[in-house]
């Protein structure tokens, strides 16, 4: 190693901004190389990823359609990540939220009540929270690792979804497809403009972002979560409870993911089906980090990943690129971000004496 990393006295503000930007540039370069090796059109793919999503009004509304759930879930996850509560099961919480919300139009097929949508909103949020509460309970009562529990709960939620779609909730007129009936208009959000899928549910993530920002930046409660995660002993000493941080983090994520799931079935999908989450629960983890776990940063990160997702859809057609290429890009993005983020707190120092090996250069 020709250099070593030395801790900075003050965190670098420049690197805080440079880290996500260099992550984007580096991922783009590596991904281009990979496409070249795989004999895929590099220029065409990059055009599809970054330019095509802005080519027409419909595409732009589609970007915002993806932006909503990513923003909503990532804001909540970031609160937990700041407190070192590793909830990586937002995907499962989203599925259960979607299931709970769908129970309303599935069991009240003929209803045209104005209360359908409010009931779905409440049930969606409660469903996600209930699923997350299992992990919170097992963590606080039995000390069970929340990474593994939330992940396993996602697999179970998926099986629950399949069971309902193949069994009791299957649309009897649906030619045996694993999906429910199409929901009535009263169970759907209003489109913002005619002919697009973007709907009024976009208000939810925006309001949620403002609330989280106030909570984290302005209110004492945010401090509690940070302290609870970073220094449990100090937190206990100051009268804050680490258990409370676990509960707040998970319930908040369940709430957000549940609402995101609800917004999908009551929005662009209009029914409950197998691909209800589109992987938002996992992508939101990347969004939370890429946004430096900061409410404002997450807004930009969510927008960027939404563009990437729409770009991936375009590349699917224009460059015959599988959607997994987007996952590769997302993975690279987070890896590069995390590596470069280290330079916020550390700086490179050349090693003077060549005789010292990298592993023993600190021994004096």
């Amino acid at each position, binding site marked *: *190693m020709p250099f*070593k*990393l030395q*801790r900075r006295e003050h965190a670098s503000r420049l690197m805080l901004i440079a880290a996500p930007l260099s992550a984007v540039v580096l991922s783009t370069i590596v991904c281009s190389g990979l496409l070249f090796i*795989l004999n895929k059109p590099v220029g065409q793919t990059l055009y599809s990823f970054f330019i095509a999503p802005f080519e027409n009004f419909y595409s732009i509304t589609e970007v915002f359609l993806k932006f909503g759930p990513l923003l909503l879930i990532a804001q909540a996850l970031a609160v937990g*990540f700041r407190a070192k509560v*590793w909830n*990586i099961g937002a995907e499962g919480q989203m599925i259960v939220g979607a299931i709970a919300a769908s129970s309303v139009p599935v069991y009240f097929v003929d209803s045209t009540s104005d209360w359908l949508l409010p009931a779905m909103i409440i049930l969606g949020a409660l469903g996600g929270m209930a699923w997350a509460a299992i992990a919170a309970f*097992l963590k606080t009562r*039995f*000390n*069970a*690792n929340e*990474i*593994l*529990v939330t*992940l*396993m*709960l996602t*697999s*179970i939620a998926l*099986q*629950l979804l*399949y*069971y309902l779609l*193949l*069994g009791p909730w299957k649309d009897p007129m649906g030619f045996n497809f694993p999906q429910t009936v199409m929901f009535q208009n009263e169970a759907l959000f209003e489109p913002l403009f005619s002919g697009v899928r973007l709907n009024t549910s976009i208000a939810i993530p925006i309001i949620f972002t403002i609330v989280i920002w106030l909570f984290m930046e302005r209110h004492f409660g945010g401090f509690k979560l940070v302290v609870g995660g970073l220094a449990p002993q100090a937190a206990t000493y100051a009268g804050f409870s680490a258990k409370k941080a676990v509960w707040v983090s998970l319930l908040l994520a369940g709430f957000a993911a549940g609402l995101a799931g609800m917004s999908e079935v009551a929005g662009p999908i209009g029914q409950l089906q197998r691909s209800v989450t589109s992987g938002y629960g*996992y992508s939101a*983890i*990347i969004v939370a*980090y890429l946004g430096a776990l900061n409410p404002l940063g997450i807004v930009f990160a969510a927008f960027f990943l939404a563009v990437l997702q729409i770009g991936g859809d375009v590349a699917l057609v224009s460059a015959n690129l*599988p959607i*997994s*290429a*987007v*996952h*590769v*890009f*997302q*993975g*690279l993005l*987070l*890896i590069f971000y*995390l*590596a*470069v*983020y*280290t330079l916020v707190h*550390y700086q490179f120092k050349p090693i003077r004496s060549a005789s010292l*090996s*990298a*592993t*023993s*250069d*600190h*021994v004096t």
Partner: protein
Amino acid sequence: MSTLEFFLAGTFSAATIFLLAALGELVAEKSGVLNLSVEGMMAVSAAIGFLVTYETGNHLLGFAVAGVAGVLISLVFALTTITFLANQVASGLAVGILGLGLSALIGRDYESLTIPSTDGIQIPVLSEIPLIGPVLFQQNLVVYMTFLLAIIIGYTLKHTRLGLAIRSTGENPHAAQALGFPVFLIRYGCVAFGGLLAGFAGAYASTIYTPLWADGMIAGRGWIAVALVVFGTWKTGRIAFGALLFGMVSLGELIAQSMGASIPSQLLSSLPYIVTIVVLAIISTDKARMRLHSPFSLGETFDGTEGR
């Protein structure tokens, strides 16, 4: 083969996937590195192992290339967390996402293709014993090697100088460095070894256990392997026992179907995940015991500076 024989023999075969991956993760964790990308490493290796075996018809070559792929992916993780000091949990997830994406990209043209299955080794005389013969002495070579490896790893960690170096690094890297152990090198080596075994686990899954490639075929087994290390409280014998238990649970679906049980298949598919959660809760309840057994510096980055 009777149903019972089929069930027990299948348990060992299914357990091999869990055990290989869990042993690799154990070694990485013993050195203080929590690598959560096991699922992704297995997926890439399963895809590459299948691709090579399909194209060449050579299982051994498939295994070797899959192992190399596992090592390469694990080195991406090592570079990020050990050299660039990034958060291990987040980096593990990131490399895992990358791995799953890569596996889908690599295996795209091979979706649902199959390769001829391999025969087990018939150990003379012993394989003729009723019940025990088919269960224990007609398995694939990889199954024997894996259980042998568990014993070797257990012994190495406990009784050798290398094992001492790994354990010291995992307990307290600052002290280990002061004692002259090459902490960075040890961690790199342990993570790469974990990648190698995850690679073999992936290859075993896609070329021997079910000789076909399907996107998402690892189906959470990498995560269960991570959980197994916790269940086994970082001890090889208990991890092997846990692997057999999960091998058995993962066959539950097949067995229930063959007996014509009327349980929804989705409930049976959920069984390994439900069991994981329940066992995890039971094992973790004793906080003091968990802290005693887990490597003390597990999950913490080490920047090479002297003690805290």
